[in-house]
């Protein structure tokens, strides 16, 4: 996978290594790492857009304020459409999730940066948070009626135990697929970019092959980068909309 050139041998997965910012000692929970740095920058970017961008509160918004308003309006509408009016109570949580994932994805696309959402540890925390929160909410709101989610009333009686097992499995797979979908997408995209980058150095190794391969791979990087810009927003959208769907299941468990 790595290139054969002497000075250029790097691995496509090197970019996902968490390392300490200062020195290279062992990592404990308090060590500031590159993940810490880029998560902090993510928060700063969100604050810059949503707090400082809307500070003017102009009736006719400027560009930054209208972007912030569009973001707010989009998520607000999504929560309302998917979970209904009573789901709007949980809108701040969903908005936080969306902003964090979106900005982490976009900051991860900067050259030399570290994409925090490519770490399964980060996305798993988000997904498990949603999973536990939604399950607790379901039991608090509906009591034992929440178990009706697994007991499909519309199916024939003989089929219901089978469906209950399937529903139960699919319920517990939710946090797994929820987290791996985001981390896997981001990781795959960034790794593909690095693989193309490795082929881009072909011109240094052999000019004959390189004259064909290098322009093609640079074109490939541009294409994959464009795709990644799309994937960044789609994955943030998918993560939040699935959160909304799970929230709807918890609030109205009857199928």
């Amino acid at each position, binding site marked *: 996978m790595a290139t054969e050139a002497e000075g250029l041998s790097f691995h496509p*997965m090197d970019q996902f290594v968490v390392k300490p910012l200062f020195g290279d000692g062992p990592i404990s929970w308090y060590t500031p790492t590159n993940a810490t740095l880029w998560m902090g920058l993510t928060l700063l970017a969100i604050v810059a857009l949503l707090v400082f961008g809307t500070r003017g509160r102009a009736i006719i918004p400027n560009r930054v304020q209208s972007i912030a308003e569009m973001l707010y309006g989009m998520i607000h509408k*999504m929560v309302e*459409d*998917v979970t209904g009016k009573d789901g709007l109570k949980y809108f701040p949580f969903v908005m936080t999730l969306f902003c964090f994932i979106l900005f982490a994805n976009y900051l991860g696309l900067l050259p030399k940066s570290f994409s925090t959402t490519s770490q399964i540890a980060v996305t798993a925390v988000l997904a498990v948070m949603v999973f536990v929160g939604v399950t607790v909410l379901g039991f608090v709101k509906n009591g034992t009626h929440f178990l009706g989610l697994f007991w499909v009333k519309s199916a024939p009686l003989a089929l219901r135990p089978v469906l209950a097992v399937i529903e139960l499995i699919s319920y517990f797979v939710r946090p797994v*697929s929820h987290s*791996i*979908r985001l981390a*896997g*997408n981001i*990781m*795959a995209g960034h790794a593909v970019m690095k693989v193309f980058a490795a082929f881009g150095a072909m011109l240094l190794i052999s000019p004959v092959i390189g004259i064909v391969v290098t322009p093609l791979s640079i074109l490939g990087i541009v294409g994959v980068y464009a795709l990644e810009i799309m994937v960044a927003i*789609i994955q943030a*959208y*998918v993560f939040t*909309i*699935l959160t909304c*769907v799970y929230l709807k299941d918890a609030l109205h468990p009857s199928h």
Partner: protein
Amino acid sequence: MEQLGQYLGAGLACIGMAGAAIGVGNVAGNYLSGALRNPSAAASQTATLFIGMAFAEALGIFSFLVALLLLFAV
């Protein structure tokens, strides 16, 4: 020899992505054909489109993950 098995397995696991590609294409194509028949109902179904795509795609990501695990974690 052991490494050969890892690489073969990782390559085979990537066949699973073809299934995900077919699935996602199916979802998008059916959405488009439905949307062209009834454009007024299309806008309200984009959320469903993305959810369907996400579910179909997750399984492809799982096979990618298996490939990665074989390469780096075994």
